[in-house]
């Protein structure tokens, strides 16, 4: 184990190196670029022995990864924003084909208007594409989730691709001290990839076939069930990770001071750190507030949410996303759990950080205020102008 001062992207690249993917397809897009640059350097200096393929588009990046996975190879690719949308067809291809590819997505706003800064509209727009989606908070979690990502994806019960989301710039380009595990420990954690879902000369297969209405629903149900079953695998993976590396992330969600909290803010990704500080401040003043970090949004942590929110009076969902004409997508998902389980509490949505808009400590304090006093359900935080009626 070594310590290094790394950006989120650098840390992720270290995690990828430790996972030993056999085929890596790369195509650049800000703010993902430095991860593919680090990986290229690793291949150059042989610290990563992998087929590095310079593809001509993101569609090809994922199509190539699918092809390699279909041969039983561990594969990696990375993207962001426009690139993620450009590969949309392949996202569903990878999940429907049950190819356990791990992909890093640097969360970034989507055009138009053009904007290279962070928000989560890119990945949240692909919530239904059948990928496991995890959002990480800091550089250490980035590295760790590269490793855990493969462990989850390749579990035969799961066999589903994993998208690891890092907030663009605020995480991808922010430097922190990171512990880099030894290769020995990484290998102990992550065994070589093995699957039945592949071609081989001894046991030829026909893959990616058509399935008509008579069997198609069953294939889709199986895919859904694998995603549901992955919840257990995610927890087991985290436990095994803790055993070997001494770090744990709590599985699908991570609560902070929620046990007796009346007001709980739900967050995703890198903003969680600042929210935690605000919770501490308010707690010092005796306010019963808490925080729940959604790490995974697919599979959706329904049970965790019920357990965490059960005795709260009001909760808020802070997200860098808006589903135009409705509300934030994470909020919609959270509300559905609350309704289905008959929880009696107020819910509020805080749309913030679009296109990289800063989310301040004051914004978060005001959000907790809003939870306590009540008010409008869907709120845009940090709009710099008044809204013309």
């Amino acid at each position, binding site marked *: 184990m070594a310590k290094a001062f790394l950006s989120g992207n650098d840390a992720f690249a270290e995690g990828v190196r430790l996972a030993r993917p*056999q*085929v890596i*397809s790369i195509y650049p897009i800000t703010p993902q670029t430095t991860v593919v640059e680090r990986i290229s350097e690793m291949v150059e200096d042989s610290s990563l022995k*992998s*087929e590095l*393929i*310079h*593809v*001509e*588009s993101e*569609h*090809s*990046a994922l*199509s*190539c*990864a*699918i*092809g*390699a*996975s*279909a*041969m*039983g*190879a561990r*594969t990696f690719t990375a993207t962001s924003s426009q690139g993620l949308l450009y590969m949309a*067809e*392949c996202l569903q*291809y990878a999940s429907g084909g049950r190819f356990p590819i791990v992909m890093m997505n640097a969360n970034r706003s989507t055009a138009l208007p053009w904007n290279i800064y962070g928000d989560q509209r890119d990945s949240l727009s692909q919530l239904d594409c059948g990928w496991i989606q995890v959002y990480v908070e800091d550089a250490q979690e980035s590295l760790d989730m590269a490793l855990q990502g493969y462990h989850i994806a390749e579990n035969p019960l799961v066999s589903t691709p994993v998208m690891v989301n890092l907030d663009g710039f605020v995480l991808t380009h922010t430097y922190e001290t990171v512990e880099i595990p030894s290769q020995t420990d990484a290998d102990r954690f992550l065994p070589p990839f093995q699957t039945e879902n592949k*071609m*081989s*000369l001894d046991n*030829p*297969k*026909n*893959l*990616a*076939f*058509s*399935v*008509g209405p008579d*069997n198609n629903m069953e294939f889709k149900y199986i895919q859904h069930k694998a995603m549901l079953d992955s919840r257990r695998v995610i927890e087991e993976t985290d436990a095994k990770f803790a055993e070997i590396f001494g770090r744990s992330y709590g599985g699908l969600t991570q609560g902070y001071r929620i046990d007796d909290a009346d007001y709980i803010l739900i967050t995703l990704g890198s903003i969680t750190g600042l929210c935690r500080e605000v919770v501490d401040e308010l707690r010092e003043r005796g306010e019963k507030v808490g925080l729940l970090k959604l790490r995974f949004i697919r599979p959706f942590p329904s049970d965790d949410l019920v357990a965490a929110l059960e005795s709260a009076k009001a909760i808020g969902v802070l997200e860098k996303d808006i589903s135009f004409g409705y509300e934030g997508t994470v909020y919609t998902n959270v509300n559905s759990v609350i309704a289905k389980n008959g929880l009696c509490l107020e819910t509020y949505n805080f749309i913030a950080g679009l296109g990289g808009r800063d989310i301040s400590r004051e914004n978060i304090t005001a959000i907790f205020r809003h939870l306590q006093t009540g008010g409008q359900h869907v709120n845009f935080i940090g709009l710099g102008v008044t809204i013309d009626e």
Partner: protein
Amino acid sequence: MSNKITAKTITDSEFFYGHKACAGCGGSLAVRIALKVLGEGAISVLPAGCMSAVGFNYPHLCFSNNSIISTFAGTASMLTGVEAGARAVGIKNFKAVGLAGDGGTADIGIQALSGAIDRNDDILYICYDNEAYMNTGIQKSGLTPFGAKTTTTPSGENIHGNLRPKKNLFEIVAAHDIPYAATASIGNLPDFINKIEKASKIKGTAYIHVVAPCPIGWGIPVNETIEIARKMMDCGLWYLAEYENGKFKLNKNPSDFSSIEDYLLAQGRFKHLEAADIEILALQRDTKWATIRKNWNNIQEEL
């Protein structure tokens, strides 16, 4: 000469069998023959299109070699992944082969094809050209020839079918300075067979463009698929050529052409053509052949 694959020596094994292609389908013949030459080490990638649609309907699976459907645009990129993945997991004696339609190759898949050639990936890409998007019901593709009626280039009073000439994909591919590219036709299987055999031994990217008539889309009786493919070569609207070591080579240089009308008017898709339209096609043909004869090495060489 002697160790060429012939009807006598080619394997008895069939790799594409029991499929649901229409009777007399030229594309299915191209795929069948290609796989017989490549053998059980072939790992085939087929994009959306007729050949994947007729061969992969779970539980009825018609390829006895490893085969996978790619996205429509992703033949070449998936081939790249398959080739790299196979090597990475230690598989030996395999050949990653793409079997894609004209639309899948010349239109939506051209970016990925260009990328793969640029990287010189060790793959064989075969485009079976039936001159339209057949699987979706005969719509115009970039390889639909001038004058052809398709469901999106109808012929009427104002417009006589497709207005644009066929893209010259063979030369587009060659312009990448690919190690090996060739044209072929299912009307001449010995030539096609030898070109596949040759291409399979190339280290790096190889490309074969094989004309494979579709009786449905072309409007011909189902037993005339081979005949029409032969007529197309005889009248000079298709030629057999290779690109190798930076040079083009014409494999067959006919001294005269058979009637272009005969070829065109035998097909429903050209029935509406008027003399002036046919003249345009004849002129295009003559211009092309003049350039070929002037610039290419056309020493006639038995393949």
